[in-house]
């Protein structure tokens, strides 16, 4: 769904997004710019276009984390943990569906361990769980994954910091202006209000929009629960009559 350069996007509200410099999240201290961002008064084709993944060939199990680490071994190769459907809709700020866009996720296993060379947490890896998924939204903006619920994990920030259970979510949207990487949290997790990464957001309503809701209507009885997580990308508007003399 790439756009041509006649499309502009609603300005990003950077007071709603997290603060870049958030000293309670210690890594942000040395990794946040001190200078003001430079606003491009006139976005160009460079900002208003982006890759369209509608024709990117995905694998059969790319959105099924229960099967995609060992596809074809369903009988004896399932991951341990709470089986979940995580689904939702990608819309823009005008509630228009964002169709054909790439949604990617990654996460720890049920014990909070990532399958990454650099994760040395003592909770074990799950031999049947990789933790990566991707899909492309359908014509109405819907996406869907099947996975297990990730566990919380400790991290070296304060002496006793633990991340809430979360799934990292990446969305392209129609241009690089709408590019977004965020994290999905789970309704009712008492670690959410304790987390300094969550608290890079000033507005509790912003945290609320990152909190996926238990969705019993979408659960599969005797199989898996479901959580719903809708994603809103910047609103696309057409520019008319620009530069007419």
């Amino acid at each position, binding site marked *: 769904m790439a756009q041509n350069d006649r499309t502009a996007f609603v300005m990003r509200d950077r007071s709603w*997004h*997290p603060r870049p410099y958030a000293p309670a999240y210690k890594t942000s201290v040395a990794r946040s*710019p001190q200078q003001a*961002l430079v606003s491009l008064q006139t976005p160009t084709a460079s900002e208003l276009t982006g890759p369209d993944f509608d024709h*990117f060939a995905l694998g059969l199990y790319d959105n099924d984390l229960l099967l995609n680490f060992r596809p074809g071994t369903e009988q004896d190769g399932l991951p341990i943990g709470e089986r979940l459907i995580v689904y939702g809709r990608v819309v823009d700020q005008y509630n228009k569906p964002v169709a054909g866009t790439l949604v990617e996720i990654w996460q720890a296993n049920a014990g909070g361990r990532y399958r990454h060379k650099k994760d040395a947490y003592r909770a074990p890896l799950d031999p049947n769980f990789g933790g990566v998924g991707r899909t492309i939204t359908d014509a109405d903006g819907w996406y869907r994954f099947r996975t297990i619920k990730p566990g919380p994990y400790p991290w070296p920030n304060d002496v006793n910091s633990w991340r809430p259970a979360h799934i*990292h979510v990446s969305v392209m949207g129609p241009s690089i202006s709408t590019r977004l990487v*965020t994290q999905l949290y789970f309704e009712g997790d008492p670690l959410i209000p304790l987390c300094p990464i969550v608290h890079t957001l000033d507005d509790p309503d*912003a945290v609320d929009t990152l909190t996926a809701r238990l969705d019993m209507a979408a659960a599969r009885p005797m199989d898996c629960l479901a959580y719903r997580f809708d994603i809103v990308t910047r609103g696309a508007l057409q520019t008319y009559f620009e530069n007419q003399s």
Partner: protein
Amino acid sequence: MPLPTRNSQGLYPETPSQTAGPFVHIGLALDVAGLTPREQEIGSNIASAEAEAEGEGEGEGEGEPIEIVGTVIDGNGDTVDDILVEAWQADAHGVYQTDYRADRAFRGFGRTAPGANDAGVWSLHTIKPGRVAHPNGQPMAPHINLMLFARGINIHLHTRLYFDDEHEANMACPLFDAVPPSRRDTLIAHREQDGAKPRYRFVIRLQGPRETVFFDF
């Protein structure tokens, strides 16, 4: 999950960003995490010289093959070895090829991250982009749009890479009207002559002296 409340302009608020964290690679750069790549991955080869030589892709990979090597430095002067960089660029004619297909010679979009033995250096293999028109009608100097994601970066950073051997075009690029003159050189990559194909080195400083210009748009 209901949609959030509309804001004062009647719009739904954009989903807020969060850091990509230390393990972004398992999702977006599988080889760096030590995972087996899937059949098709978005990688650091934006243009494939091989496909071009074989005449595949109907010339979409045409242009001057180049390598970009980059490092990202934090406010302490330390290299950010867990950075993930995304690149978006026009083809050799200055046209954005928006239909991403992994099997094409030129893809326009790529991702790169330093591996465990790379000392924080990342690279991109691509072709030098052509000039894209600014809405005011003037051509912009050749550039690659870069997005930076990492642990400690709460909302990704947008910057542009320009080329030091395009001095004249750079000086005339309308984009630079928005950038304070003293900071413009933070956007310039430097050509190196060794190696089979031209290589440009780009240092991004997240914070402090000679901090790279980052954009809002």
